[in-house]
């Protein structure tokens, strides 16, 4: 939980967060994130452009001589709609595949396990260089090229380009919160059924969506509530930790109260079910609240820096997931959220300070590479459990890579403000 809204934003919801409703998510890329693809029911054709003008790319994850390999049946397609079909035939260590361009996740599939049906997603791609990212594979990054018309270089003034980026980021937040809504309902289904094991697994799957989106937490306030009233503070209601001073009036609830019951108590009680029901309701409110949120460029910059601050203050310390020790899952969620906020500013920032872009690209990459070392497909959420013992040996290593990134992200806001 990011607990800073009252301290940093005196104007509360009448600030930059409450501007007119955003008409439509403009980022074609983001609309492809995560859940849009359907499981392919039939074996995909070999790579080609089919009669409808849609190119197809088959991504195969397979165990190969003791290593998990990620391979493509084609490395080049023409610009236009492209359907990626991902099959995990035998690679237990790879559970995720992302299509990346300039730090931005253009499309992705998660929860890939050997033996499941292939899954696919379709995105419309402009010409240019992309990467296929299969975390955990022997070669994690594969080059992928799209020929033909490149995306128009962002035109217009720097403020215009930055402003365009904020709209793309809005769409990302909305997408993540929608997925959070789905995942929270799945958690609730397991909780209401009294199935502790399923509930734990569902909890681990739901958490990253919140951690990715919480950079915009300052806007997570229900209409009609004072900014200092926790009863209307969705971040409090959804994500407060026991270590946060509990507001007696509102009590302790949300994800981490459920976490306590599942891991510490190891049992689902009627109280757990009530907490879960309330959580579903509050996440539903969040879906409504985030839809109209608009951001200034500096909000993205501050949000990205805040997420990395969260990593240092509550993830590396093991404070966030005090019972389940799934802190590295949240860590990865915070980093992805920060990276996507940065990616939305990146075209504008490229014009303001290209050297900073180079630095930030490298620093994000260093963090991601380090984090990859903790992937464990067998653990809930896909990362090693951040036990006190592991924390004791490894926390300094993670701190060492996260601090330089934080330092650099801290300088972005002033750059975009000066340019706006």
């Amino acid at each position, binding site marked *: 939980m990011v607990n800073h809204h009252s301290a940093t934003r005196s104007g509360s919801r009448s600030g930059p967060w409450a501007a007119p409703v955003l008409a439509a998510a403009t980022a074609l890329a983001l609309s492809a994130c995560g859940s849009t693809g359907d499981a392919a029911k039939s074996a995909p054709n070999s790579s080609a452009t089919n009669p409808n003008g849609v190119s197809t790319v088959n991504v195969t994850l397979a165990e190969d001589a003791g290593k998990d390999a990620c391979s493509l049946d084609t490395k080049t397609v023409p610009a236009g709609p492209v359907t990626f079909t991902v099959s995990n035939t035998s690679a237990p260590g790879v559970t995720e595949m992302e299509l990346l361009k300039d730090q931005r996740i253009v499309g992705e599939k998660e929860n890939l396990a050997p033996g499941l049906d292939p899954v696919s997603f379709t995105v419309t791609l402009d010409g240019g260089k992309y990467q296929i990212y299969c975390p955990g594979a022997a070669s994690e990054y594969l080059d992928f090229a799209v020929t033909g018309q490149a995306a128009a270089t962002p035109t217009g003034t720097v403020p215009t380009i930055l402003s365009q980026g904020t709209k793309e980021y809005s769409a990302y937040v909305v997408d993540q919160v929608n997925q959070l809504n789905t995942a929270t309902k799945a958690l609730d289904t397991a909780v209401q059924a009294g199935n502790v094991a399923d509930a734990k697994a569902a909890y681990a799957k739901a958490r990253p969506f919140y951690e990715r989106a919480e950079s915009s937490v300052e806007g997570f306030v229900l209409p009609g509530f004072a900014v200092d009233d926790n009863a209307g503070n969705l971040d409090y209601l959804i994500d407060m930790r026991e270590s946060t001073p509990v507001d007696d009036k509102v009590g302790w609830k949300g994800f981490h109260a459920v976490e306590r019951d599942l891991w510490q108590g190891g049992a689902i009680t009627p109280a757990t079910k009530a907490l879960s029901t309330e959580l579903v309701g509050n996440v539903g409110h969040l879906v409504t609240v985030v839809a109209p949120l608009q951001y200034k460029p500096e909000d993205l910059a501050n949000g990205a820096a805040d997420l990395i601050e969260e990593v240092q203050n509550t993830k590396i310390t093991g404070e966030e997931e005090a019972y389940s020790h799934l802190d590295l899952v949240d860590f990865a969620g915070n980093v992805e959220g920060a990276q996507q906020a940065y990616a939305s500013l990146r075209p504008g920032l490229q014009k303001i300070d290209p050297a900073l872009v180079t630095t930030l690209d490298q620093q994000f990459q260093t963090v991601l590479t380090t984090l990859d070392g903790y992937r464990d497909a067998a653990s809930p959420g896909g990362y090693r459990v951040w036990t006190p013992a592991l924390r004791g040996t490894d926390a300094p290593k993670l701190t060492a890579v996260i601090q330089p990134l934080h330092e650099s992200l*801290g300088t972005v806001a002033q750059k975009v403000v000066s340019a706006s």
Partner: protein
Amino acid sequence: MLSGALIAGLGGAVVGAVGGGTTAWAMASSEAAQVDDGDAVDLNRSHPFYGTGHQGGISTEPQRHTVFMTFRLADAASARSLQTLLARWSAAAAVMQQGKPVGTVQPDNEVAPPTDTGEAFGLSPASLTVTIGLGPALFDGRFGLAAHKPAAFADLPTLNGDTLDPKFTGGELSVQACADDPQVCYHAVRNLARLGRSTVTPFWAVLGFGRTSAGPGQQTPRNLLGFKDGTRNIDTDEQYSKFVWVSGGDQPWMEGGTYQVVRKIRMLLETWDTDRVGNQQRIIGRHKKEGSPLSGRSEKDTPDFAAEDAAGEPVIDPLSHVALAAHENNDGVLIKRRGYNYTDGLDPNGQLNAGLLFISYQNDPQNFVRLQNRLGGHDLLNEYIRHVGSAIFAVPPAPEQGHYVAQALFG
């Protein structure tokens, strides 16, 4: 100066701009009435960083506090980033030694983070010195510096009595910040760490709160054993030239530099405190209050290691700390000791976790190695101390204005 030295050997003097003072030391018959005004501190005093020949914090009159931190280079660090770091550290140290912030504490732009962290804003320079050292591992080839490694410079070997904790051992860069205000020390190290964030990672750090060495005119302070420490220290220019400053070595960039040895020495204070004073004195080889050698009466008396008591036993035990460390018994070798008391609070067993941050400067690391091997093997004091941390650094000479520490390495 008033006729202060009522007790022989306690030649107190006021440091700094005042230039003189009293040594109002009450008579020895009244312990409770002793007044320490022999070391008045002038917080407005500042030391230059550039053009001083040797870096500050070595022959500088010891300030009251230190923060010492070691660093490791990030995996991605390059010769270029190391060079840039040393240049930025030098410039920042120079500014901070004047009592100024490193950049603004109040940016005009509200969304900009402050450049300086701010906690020393408005504080006086407090005689801050920043001493920058380079660890042996920097010369391993990663940065193209292998050919510049002095022959005398290597990691310390395992020494007699070592019980080192890897968490406090080694390091690729060191920063020693000494000042008469602890917050000034802390601010200096914190801001250098921040400047270096993409190039170096802090490795281990010690906060020293009381000096255990004296400069000319300063009273000899006490360590946490309650004994005076640093009585027979390197003092004169001649001694510095002979034992501290590198001269005529195999690496031109180290001419005028020195080697910094740092040992974190835990003291087992609870048991020491209940040891009878006679035994404490036998272990150290000096009287507790006066600090005089057991063979003498005042602090500055030269120990007489041949003196025997009526029973024919040596007055100063040959295995006492003083006897083993004395230059008379070590081929005349001296090292410059410039340590500080430290505490890390309590240990997991509920005991005082404290001791001596031993820092010494010498032009030949072997001088320390031989001395410590002797002490580590035989010192009666070993029952009450543990060497838990250790590191060695090459300290290049001070840069001239417009240059930076160790610049000659990157020609």
